């Protein structure tokens, strides 16, 4: 649960940069009121919630079909965690090198068309013992990533956007490192315990 939340928290800034700015283009212009943004945001988060619910179900069913024995169940996700975690760190470093206009981050992310955090949570969902555990993993991921969207209605009034962006970039890198360790633990644990 902790790692899903951390992953959500770390990727939330990226979600905000990719989805947030695309879904709410008027944010940058500052032309919409708090109420309008709050309504649109609620709809957006509800849609995300439903999509995650579906993804949690699909990931778990695929996991049951693919990870048939305990060795595979530890080693394959371990490798996947490491690969995606490296990508997450790389993504964080990449974001750090491109300061300035948020629109530029959108371009960068869209050009890559890849969200490592989503793949990590899909891997996690696929390796859970029960469907409800998969739902819980996605739910905590959803909560973590949604935290970033909460100040959105007040976006026009937030003066320290650069600071929030910096914290987001660092959180992404940190989550990458955490999942790298988790991947290594899974991999070594799988090999040691057979």
């Amino acid at each position, binding site marked *: 649960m902790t790692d899903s939340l951390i992953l959500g*928290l770390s990727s939330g800034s990226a979600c905000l940069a990719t989805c947030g700015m695309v879904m709410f283009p008027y944010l940058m212009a500052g032309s919409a009121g708090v109420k309008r943004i709050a309504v649109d945001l609620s709809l957006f988060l509800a849609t995300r919630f439903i999509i995650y619910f579906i993804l949690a179900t699909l990931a778990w069913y695929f996991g049951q079909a693919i990870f048939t024995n305990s060795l595979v169940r530890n080693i394959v996700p371990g490798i996947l965690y490491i690969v995606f975690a490296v990508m997450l760190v790389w993504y964080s470093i990449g974001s*750090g090198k491109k300061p300035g206009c948020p629109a530029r981050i959108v371009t960068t992310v869209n050009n890559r068309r890849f969200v490592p955090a989503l793949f990590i949570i899909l891997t996690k969902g696929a390796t859970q013992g029960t469907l409800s555990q998969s739902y819980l993993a996605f739910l*905590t991921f959803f909560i973590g990533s949604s935290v970033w969207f909460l100040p959105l209605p007040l976006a026009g009034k937030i003066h320290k956007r650069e600071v929030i962006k910096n*914290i987001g970039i660092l*959180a992404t890198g*940190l989550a990458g490192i955490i999942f790298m360790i988790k991947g290594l633990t899974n991999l070594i*644990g799988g090999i040691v315990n057979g």
Partner: protein
Amino acid sequence: MDNSLKISGMEKSFWKSLLFSLPMILITFMFITGGRPNFSDPYEAIALLSVFLLVNILFFLMHFSGKTDRYRAVLFILFAFSLSYTLIRNMLEIRHSMSFSQADLLECKIPFCHLVIPMMILPAAFTKSIIFPGSIISGFANISSMVVLWITATIVLGRGFCSWGCFYGGWDDGFSRVRKKPVIKKINSLWKWMPFAVLLMVALSAALTMLPTYCDWLCPFKTVTEFEKVTSVESAAKAGVFLTLFGGLVVVLPVMTRKRTQCSFLCPLGAVNSLSNKITPFTVKIDKTACTQCFKCVEACPLYALTKEDVNAGKVSVFCSKCGKCVDACSKKAIHYGIKGIPAGTMKSFSRNLFLFVSFLFMAIFSSGAIISTLQNLLKLIF
């Protein structure tokens, strides 16, 4: 003639500093001896007197020399090493190991440390539960006394707690003084926001899991206090993380950069304390009219709290821990301790004396127990 004037000036300054130190001497005597000194154990008596003298000589020298950081650092570093020594010695005596078992966890026998506080706030507010397996009101390092101490110190000193009260800060402060010149001179300023990223993650993950996640996975000071017994791949991975972070952020990077990198780039409590700098009455001020923009203060700052832009703007950032290193580095006395509401460049001496009295007294009272215990034990070992 000049020499005699100089000597008489020094004499005057000596008596003035001694007079200023008198309240400190009385208060520390009361706290260190408990008002009734017991000299039945010679080792304890020697340790007690030595610490009492050390504390008061350091305070006297701060006033007499006008320098702050070098004397603060002596007690601060001693405090960190002594506390770890005392804690490890106690654990080895009681448990015969530095690791704690599941039974210790279940019986709430883990000593509390202030780094847990950021993780405790949300669970305590929403569920009225304390997520740390320690004793609430009784025993060594209990939760309530530590929280009260931290709140009091933070309200008064702000992030000054990190340089005058934290019993871990002395580790990287100590290592940051090993080299005379830094090997790594420039670090991306983005990193100074890392403690906020860590705070965000540990506070929310602790609220959701009801576990002190920072202690579980990230705290480098587990290396010099206590840690989970290595019984699985996961606990081995945790031990690896603790050792790597301690080696990297507390030893190697401070030596290479001459900065307190653990405090600057990891500590979530440092992030909370930075925010508390907004409410504390004490601050560090820059007198723009006296500043020659030599930026020696920027170079001296151990926490990356001061940038050239800050100096040009005439104010220090929220990351300032009021250690006094920048104040000591400024030959023009343009940067000084101040009180909010009083303009920069005025009442410098009054502000400094007031701040030093409060902060040093806090550190002296807080640290003396651990240093006395360490010294007493070392004396017993040697003789």
